């Protein structure tokens, strides 16, 4: 007879959950109706939030965790996984989201940070966390804190993919560099990256992060999604890009197809036709420093 009792909340089931999302698209939704549209379009998960990043930018003020009623409504509306955002460092918002039964918590720079020094201790939770990063050091610090999935930060709510591109290229270049270092050099690299040496050694050995890497922040078109996949993303978060566009259902489905067939320009061309208006977007030069989210977290 086996004596092992079922174990929940292990690193393996947390990271494994992200493995199951690979090759898929996770969509920001603010109502149960939008969640249904996302599920019908083939999303692998939805991100429940009160306002999409584009509206958070427009409205200003403090952006917080969503209303539990609204999250419950979205959980009830769909059968795919539901994620939700907590403020950076706000461990009680994260506790509430876990109690609500969300499947992944995004400790997100899109919301107003609640702590200027500490991120949430993610090891203390059963629910897994995804965190944003702009470079490898930041990604490894989040993983050291217990993040089970990493996404590029990009610049959310802009419909401008340039920052996501920068972050994906940076993370990829940082990883490539580590794979070329010897053992002695890895100790110095860990110091420079401000990351635990064990994680640095693991990345050097694997040639990739020890957790799944998605992209996020400014993806608005099927071609944007496919480009991020070709740059090494293992899946895509789309925030404002879908429900701030002219035909959300059609665009959502097109982005799902372009993500799976990211290396097939014929498919991407086909699904890019007749999508209607894309979200207008923001040029980053027009954003002041305090309007940039990617600098939040460290």
């Amino acid at each position, binding site marked *: 007879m086996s004596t092992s009792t079922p174990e929940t909340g292990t690193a393996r089931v947390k990271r494994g959950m992200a493995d199951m999302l690979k*090759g898929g698209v996770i969509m920001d939704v603010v109502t149960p109706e939008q969640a249904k549209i996302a599920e019908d379009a083939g999303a692998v998960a939805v991100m429940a939030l009160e306002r999409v990043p584009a509206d958070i930018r427009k409205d200003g003020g403090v952006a917080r965790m969503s209303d539990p009623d609204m999250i419950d409504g979205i959980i009830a509306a769909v059968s795919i996984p539901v994620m939700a955002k907590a403020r950076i460092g706000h461990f009680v918002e994260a506790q509430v989201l876990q109690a609500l039964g969300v*499947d992944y918590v995004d400790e997100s720079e899109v919301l107003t940070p609640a702590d200027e020094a500490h991120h949430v201790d993610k090891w203390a939770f059963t629910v897994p966390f995804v965190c944003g990063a702009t470079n490898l050091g930041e990604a490894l610090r989040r993983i050291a804190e217990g993040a089970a999935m990493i996404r590029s930060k990009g610049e959310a709510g802009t419909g401008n993919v340039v920052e996501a591109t920068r972050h994906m290229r940076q993370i990829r270049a940082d990883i490539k560099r580590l794979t070329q270092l010897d053992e002695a050099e890895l100790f110095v690299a860990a110091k420079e990256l401000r990351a635990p040496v064990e994680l640095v050694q693991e990345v050097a050995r694997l040639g990739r992060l020890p957790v799944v890497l998605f992209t996020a922040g400014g993806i608005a078109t099927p071609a944007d999604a496919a480009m991020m996949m070709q740059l090494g993303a293992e899946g895509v978060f789309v925030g404002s890009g879908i429900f701030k566009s002219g035909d959300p259902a059609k665009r959502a489905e097109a982005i799902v197809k372009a993500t799976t*067939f990211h290396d097939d320009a014929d498919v991407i061309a086909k699904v890019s036709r007749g999508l209607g208006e894309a979200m207008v977007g923001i040029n980053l030069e027009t954003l002041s420093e305090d309007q940039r989210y990617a600098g939040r977290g460290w």
Partner: protein
Amino acid sequence: MPPAIPEKVTVTANPTPTVGVLALQGDVREHVRVLEDSGARTLTVRRPDELERADGLVIPGGESTTMWRLARSFDMLEPLRKRVEAGMPVYGSCAGMIMLADTILDGVDGQETVGGLAMTVRRNAFGRQVDSFEADVRIDGFADPFHAVFIRAPWVESVGEAVDVLGRVETGPAAGRIVAVRQGQLLATSFHPELTGDARVHRFFVDMVKGLS
């Protein structure tokens, strides 16, 4: 209608088979790695012409509704059903188990499967992600228990006569639930052996593709 499994399938021994991994969505890389470690050549399959080149197929873990929609959009469902009907060995883990089931419960409206395995599978049966777990499961034919990882996993609610039950959850609230089955050339598990480094399930499947098991 899901395809019926022929009573008798003729299998010729193939020492170096090519095993495809359905790559519409999910943990494709993990399956590819374990299959290669188990002596198979591998091929990722997104299109009918790639499917034709595979001697066997793994349907990975992932989101079954996404896989179904993409398989439908890219004309993969019928070719998959035809190959299953023709006796191609197929192994499905988690979402792959759902895809192989003749009947599913708690699917989305209109959700179709490839089918072939005479079983009813309940989607997300163990609960949400906070309920995802690891536990040892005894599998028929394996000497030692298999350490199994269940992620928002389905379970098998009931099976037809032709289906062999290979393993059940042993402890906890879901004790007794069926989580590993085989019917002819079709093998399915609720759990993810591709995540644990224990290659016994994949080796068993590769032997099926070789015509040895």
